[in-house]
């Protein structure tokens, strides 16, 4: 095979692969971008070419007190869920990092399994149990279920950070006279701070978007995603795009903040 044909050969395959990657990313982002674009489109039934620019869908939702109530509720749920599940996740990650004990496999399985259970089933189980003990249909019912779903993510993030830590750091602190609590406060938690903040952001984002379990247990206390779900069951309604884009902006800023925190810390670690 001549030099030239070899070069063009691999050029074609590289070109094809690049194009393929672009197509995959286009598929992944098409619905997200489209939803954003259509949220400013005046036509109720959007087609190409687009209608005129409008902010009426945003005006409609901002004028709707139900939307504001749901929004406030979503934020509350997300914030409380983030705090509780990050606390639990951190404790579980630290347990895994620090201790060996009988039944650890089972313990970790329990800690990490919930996201693999279909949300519908989780919703049904929570609804069945909570309604039996008269705890369903409340804002805290959503929080309870979301913590179950979110703490595994928080655990994973904190565990990843802990695995970058020299295990002897903590022992060194003890050796220098720190109590277990002091070592935790002065060594472990500062070291894990970026991971903890990242976990707060990510769990808040997951909770803020979760619709299935919330739909089962929320009763009349709808969150934003549950509201979207119910609008979706009706007719085509561009309000969804407006709400969706709004929600997207919030979730994505949480994710970006989390990502930046994780990345910058990584870079610092690499340099030193």
């Amino acid at each position, binding site marked *: *095979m*001549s*030099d030239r044909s*070899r070069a063009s050969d691999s050029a074609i395959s590289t070109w094809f692969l690049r194009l393929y990657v672009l197509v995959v990313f286009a598929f992944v982002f098409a619905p997200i971008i489209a939803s954003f674009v259509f949220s400013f489109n005046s036509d109720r039934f959007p087609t190409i070419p687009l209608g005129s620019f409008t902010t009426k869908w945003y005006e409609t939702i901002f004028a709707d007190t139900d939307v504001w109530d749901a929004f406030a509720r979503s934020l509350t749920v997300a914030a409380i869920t983030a705090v509780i599940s990050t606390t639990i996740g951190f404790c579980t990650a630290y347990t895994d990092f620090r201790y060996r004990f009988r039944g650890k496999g089972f313990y970790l399985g329990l800690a990490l399994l919930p996201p693999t259970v279909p949300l519908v089933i989780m919703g049904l189980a929570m609804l069945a149990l909570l309604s039996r003990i008269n705890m369903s249909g409340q804002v805290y019912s959503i929080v309870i279920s979301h913590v179950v779903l979110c703490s595994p993510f928080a655990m994973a993030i904190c565990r990843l950070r802990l695995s970058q830590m020299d295990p002897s750091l903590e022992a060194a602190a003890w050796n220098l006279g720190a109590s277990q609590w002091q070592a935790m406060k002065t060594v472990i938690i500062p070291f894990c701070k970026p991971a903890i903040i990242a976990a707060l952001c990510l769990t808040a984002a997951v909770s803020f978007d979760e619709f299935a379990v919330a739909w089962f247990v929320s009763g009349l206390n709808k969150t934003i995603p549950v509201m979207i779900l119910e609008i979706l069951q009706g007719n085509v309604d561009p309000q969804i795009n407006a709400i969706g884009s709004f929600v997207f902006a919030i979730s994505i800023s949480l994710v970006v903040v989390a990502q930046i925190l994780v990345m910058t810390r990584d870079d610092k670690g690499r340099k030193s």
Partner: protein
Amino acid sequence: MNAPVLVEFKDVEKRFGDTVAVEAMDLQIRKGEFLAIMGSSGCGKTTTLRMLAGLEQPSAGQILLDGKRVDTLRPEERDTPLVWQSLALFPFLSVVENVEFGLKMRGVDKVARRERAMDWLGRLDIAEFASRSVDQLSGGQRQRVALARALVTTPEILLLDEPLSALDANLVVRMQGVLSKLQKDLGITFVYVTHSQSEAFAMADRIVVMSNGRVEQIGTPEEIYREPATRFVAEFIGTNNIVSGSVTSVDDRHTTIQGDGVTLTATNGSTALRVGASATAVVSADSVRLNAAPSDAVNQANQIVGTLVSEAFVGSVVTLLLETPAGEFRVQTRQRDLAQINLEHGAKIALSFTPEDVFLLPDTREGG
């Protein structure tokens, strides 16, 4: 010595971005020889080997195998099997399946390739492990699997990239024997990349010493050892003592140089030096004689008085380190030759050597 050329590097250069890994390389590898490419890490030795295998593309120049240009071929289109530093055995295949791999790629049918693979496992004494998984083998056994896998296609050349670096010292010596014998029996060319002098000196017919992407010297182990071409080579061979100085007299048999407080006389070599030129004298550690220094001993031609700093025993060989006016001196001798010498630290010892044992190198600015 006059075997035909199998591989030829013609003015080959390899750059990675701004760094030059290999520069202006001209190298001929003969059929049936055991060639070692030696140098410290980052000197370009592995890059040279990878270019020969096609895993790197030269930035300039040509590589010929058996007279045909191969630098434009993909690695899978060449028959230049490599034994990897990491061995690179396929963990999802059994021992015999690993060995069969190359044959399978060449379309050899199932029965024939199993037979040839088993034959090679037998030759390397590991037939009993054929159906094991590779991670159940010891380091030495894995080494043999890697060899069998590379040799099963009966190539004309075998490339080895520091294959023994992961083994413990005893095993290294044993594997050196295995490799040497294998190369002699098969009569094929081995190109062996290593940073270890002992491996290169123990096995190679010729050695290429590289530094900073350049070939410093190509020669037999004897030549590299006794007549280093550059100061780098002299220093790289860790047992050499090096004294810098300037030439004070030249006659038809000897050249004398004056270093820091020492005078060295050497038998004239191939390079003629002029009076006043700066030069480097190389004295290998095993050619220095020791005498307990009498109190009135002085530095004279080819005699240096030094102070003992430390000694190290490896088996029956002793390496002494002495502080002299010309810097540190290293002396290797047998333990029983030390009987009459006072080995207390700080003892004065006279070191002497014959003019035949002093090798003079003209100083080249770039070599310094």
